[in-house]
């Protein structure tokens, strides 16, 4: 089996360099690098499936392969689950990229560079999930961060991309510092670099060290995952990358951070969770869910909006994990599996539908050359396939039945319901608040995606570019079809997706309380709650058919006619339509305390008169709360400190020698 893993890595590496052999032909460069990416991802997918399906936890150590003993890899089922997610997305996104990148705008060298970064980026995510010691983990983790930085700044002509990239790299490096802290303490306590020695160290660690490791891991991985308040880079960086890479970053990379967190909590700590950890994770998740969607509502750039929804969904995932940690802390062993399954299933589902939505956004961007919602409109007629796939993605992310998002959100709600059974008022009240915030986030997400879908796809085109939009190419449609198909399959037959998660739950020696079959899904076999998505779908179709046929039998065929929209006697024009800004207006007023909106109206009137209005310009801004109250002060402190430190840097070499001497004397005085 290790053969497949190595094959996958070798293929990725070949894909990375292959592009550079075609110096004159960007098309060939792109074809080969994407071809290798698909082959490598397929190998990775088969490898991870077999690792998941193996009856006993499937372990392979690759230490012997690499001569340096510092590098070692290990794939258990938790790793396999995330490798599967990455490589499956790798296959589908690469298929999409064939059509998406076929615009021929980039030179051969640039195309080759993209192929290089893209292949290695996919490979690095797989390696992070497989890393088995501190050194390996940190190296591949940094590799992933730096490669994704270069992908974010790939279109470096745009200065905002450079800015986004800078913010991203700073944040991600700060996150790594926290991870190093966590690893340092684990190393100090166990005296080993190997993950296998950390296993179940939770019971042995002193309380304080345990808390420090937890806090560092939460901040470090939370930063990469985009957990509030560490999310500010995410809506800047994810949209800056080319759309197929955005899909990987939002769909997969932030989940790799969740993988790291899971590895720490349920593997290294062995589920030895302190009760307030669960509360903190639950609270941070709930806060992320609401914050993400609130800012998404105000955002009218499609890709940035989707990035904010990643913050929301990471929040939902962390709610699931927090819920599981609460069960673990209070020894409700039978229910840890339920909440953890909910979290893992949402990871899987979000990976699917967020990739789908980003690919849809990429198709629109390719067709009209803009991601501004206000410039779209009427695309359902111009790009019917993209419209249907995008609609499925929208209904999945908003957790509407019968799509996959509903099932995982339902499981999260079930976990929270049983969290209420835990004694302790602090726990109960936090859980109640989380339930309310999750419900609010879900409802606001529905409102937000009504805005997205209606403004982008329905009614009249709002601009000339939207009027000339063309359907996406075949490879793009095929990729989106696969993802949409998965959304439906995992929604109607959730046992398919849950069967990928059950082995992971088993591995942690948790009772797998979620029982699912072809027709049913029970959150816990002892509780008589159940849903049956296929039955509901059948009832739905049956009822519609009965009413449709009955109406036809009694009153005849449904007569239909087309006619212009009534606009009070005038011909309807795009500028009469409701805009995204208008649609979100009630929310801006309702949550004015959070948004602190300011707006500016400029009127230009006809010369001489004050009344005949020629043009009106409306501009609105919302105040970025986290940036202003958390990050501004930090930046200010750093700048002030460095300005102070600069005073002693005069550039005079004698003075520097003096500093060295003084330091030496000082150290000698202290230590000798």
């Amino acid at each position, binding site marked *: 089996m290790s053969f497949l893993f190595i094959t996958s890595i070798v293929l990725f590496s070949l894909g990375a360099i292959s592009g550079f052999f075609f110096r004159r032909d960007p098309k060939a460069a792109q074809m080969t690098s994407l071809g290798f990416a698909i082959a490598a991802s397929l190998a990775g997918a088969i490898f991870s499936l077999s690792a998941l399906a193996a009856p006993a936890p499937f372990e392979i150590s690759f230490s012997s392969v690499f001569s340096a003993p510092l590098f070692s890899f290990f794939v258990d089922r938790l790793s396999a689950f995330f490798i599967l997610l990455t490589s499956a997305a790798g296959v589908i996104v690469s298929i999409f990229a064939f059509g998406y990148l076929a615009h021929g705008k980039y030179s051969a060298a640039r195309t080759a560079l993209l192929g290089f970064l893209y292949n290695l980026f996919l490979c690095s995510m797989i390696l992070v999930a497989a890393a088995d010691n501190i050194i390996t983990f940190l190296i591949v983790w940094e590799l992933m961060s730096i490669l994704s930085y270069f992908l974010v700044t790939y279109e470096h002509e745009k200065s905002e991309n450079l800015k986004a990239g800078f913010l991203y790299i700073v944040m991600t490096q700060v996150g790594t510092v926290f991870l190093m802290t966590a690893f340092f303490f684990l190393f100090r306590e166990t005296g080993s670099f190997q993950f296998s020695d950390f296993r179940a160290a939770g019971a042995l660690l002193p309380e304080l060290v345990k808390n420090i490791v937890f806090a560092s891991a939460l901040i470090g991985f939370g930063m990469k995952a985009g957990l509030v308040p560490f999310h500010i880079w995410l809506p800047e960086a994810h949209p800056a990358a080319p759309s197929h890479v955005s899909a990987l970053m939002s769909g997969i990379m932030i989940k790799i951070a969740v993988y790291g967190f899971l590895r720490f909590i349920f593997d290294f700590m062995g589920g030895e969770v302190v009760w307030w950890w669960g509360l903190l994770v639950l609270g941070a998740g709930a806060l992320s869910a609401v914050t993400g969607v609130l800012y998404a509502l105000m955002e009218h750039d499609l890709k940035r909006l989707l990035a904010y929804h990643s913050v929301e969904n990471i929040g939902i995932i962390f709610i699931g994990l927090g819920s599981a940690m609460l069960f673990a802390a209070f020894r409700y062993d039978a229910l840890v599996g339920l909440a953890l399954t909910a979290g893992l299933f949402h990871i899987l589902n979000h990976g699917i539908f967020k990739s789908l939505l980003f690919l849809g956004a990429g198709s629109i961007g390719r067709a009209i050359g803009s991601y501004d919602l206000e410039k779209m409109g009427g695309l359902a007629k111009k790009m019917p396939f993209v419209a249907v796939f995008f609609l499925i993605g929208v209904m999945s992310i908003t957790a509407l*039945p019968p799509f996959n998002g509903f099932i995982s959100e339902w499981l999260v709600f079930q976990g929270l319901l049983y969290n209420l059974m835990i004694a302790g008022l602090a726990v109960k009240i936090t859980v109640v608040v989380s339930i309310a915030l999750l419900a609010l986030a879900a409802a606001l997400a529905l409102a937000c995606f009504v805005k997205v879908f209606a403004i982008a796809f329905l009614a009249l085109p709002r601009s000339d570019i939207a009027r000339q939009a063309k359907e996406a190419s075949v490879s793009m449609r095929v990729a989106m079809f696969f993802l949409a198909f998965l959304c439906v399959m995992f929604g109607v037959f959730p046992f398919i997706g849950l069967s990928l998660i059950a082995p992971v739950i088993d591995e942690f020696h948790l009772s797998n309380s979620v029982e699912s079959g072809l027709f049913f899904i029970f959150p816990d076999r002892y509780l008589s709650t159940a849903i049956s998505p296929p039955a509901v779908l059948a009832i739905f179709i049956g009822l519609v058919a009965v009413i449709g046929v009955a109406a036809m039998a009694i009153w005849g065929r449904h007569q239909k006619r087309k006619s212009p*929209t009534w606009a009070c006697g005038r011909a309807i024009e795009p500028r009469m339509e409701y805009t995204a800004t208008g649609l979100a207006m009630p929310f801006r007023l309702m949550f004015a305390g959070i948004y602190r909106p300011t707006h500016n109206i400029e009127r230009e009137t006809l010369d001489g008169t004050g009344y005949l209005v020629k043009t009106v310009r409306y501009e609105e801004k919302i105040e970025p709360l986290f940036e202003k109250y958390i990050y501004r002060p930090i930046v200010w402190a750093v700048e002030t400190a460095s300005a102070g430190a600069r005073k002693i840097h005069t550039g005079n070499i004698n003075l520097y020698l003096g500093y060295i001497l003084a330091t030496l004397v000082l150290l000698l005085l202290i230590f000798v």
Partner: protein
Amino acid sequence: MNEILLSIFIVLLQGGLLILGAPLVRGLIRVLKARLQNRKGPPLFQSYFDLIKLFQKESVASHNSSFIFQIAPWIIFGATASSALFLPVIFRFSPLWFSADIILIVYLLALATFFMALSGLDAGSAFGGMGSSREMMIYSLSEPATILSIFAVAYSAGSTNIANIVEYFFANPSALFTVGNIFAFLALFIITLAENKRVPVDNPATHLELTMVHEAMILEYSGRQLALIEWASALKLTIFFVLLANIFFPAGLIGALSLGGILFALVVFALKIGILAAMVALVEGSIAKLRLFRLPDFIMIAFALAFIALISGFFM
């Protein structure tokens, strides 16, 4: 074999009663409201006449509209009608208990809301946009309150399965009259008004006003499509009534099949729905519609009640 037939009979009886009886509930509220205002009001069965008339008429769609406009009425109707099948109406259970719990029912209704809001924006007229925007605002305010009040009763019963909840309260009548339950009932009643666009949230009697919400969204619909949407909205109101009546007052629901029992349960059910209809009519007859931006205050009352309902359950 017999059991399957029996189950089908129970599903058809309960579901058919709700789906076919829903327009009557709407008619009843209209008549009661008219009497309160010293008017004679329309006939009790006017809603049925309207629906029958609409089913025979042709549907006109805008040139600008897409496939969403065509499929939305069917999805709205289908989602609402399927959620009606999972409710205990005259029995304490539904043979379909395994297929949907109360959260799924709420999300099926959300599915209908989603398509309603999309279809409002599909024709490109500003009226539809206004309606959809307001609908989503009201929905996102009331949703947390809905979930919390559901969790309040689900917490008591230890399950989100609606048959379990009803069975629990039927077996423990003393659990019904706790502070938590009364608050949860009041919260769900306010949500019923908000979600079904009744006064003081929206005026169902209005048409072509700038303040309308529901009517604005369905302005472009006509003929059979309009009939489906109107039927679905009557059904949605009835579903909320059934939740209010049968969760909080499960008395009169029967556990076994007998002709006398069914008749008895039907009478009790009609009585409960009649009382709820009278309550809605009383609210509509006595208070005025609120301004749009006063609505958050009104719905926050429901949220606060539901929050207290759930918290107070911990001290019982």
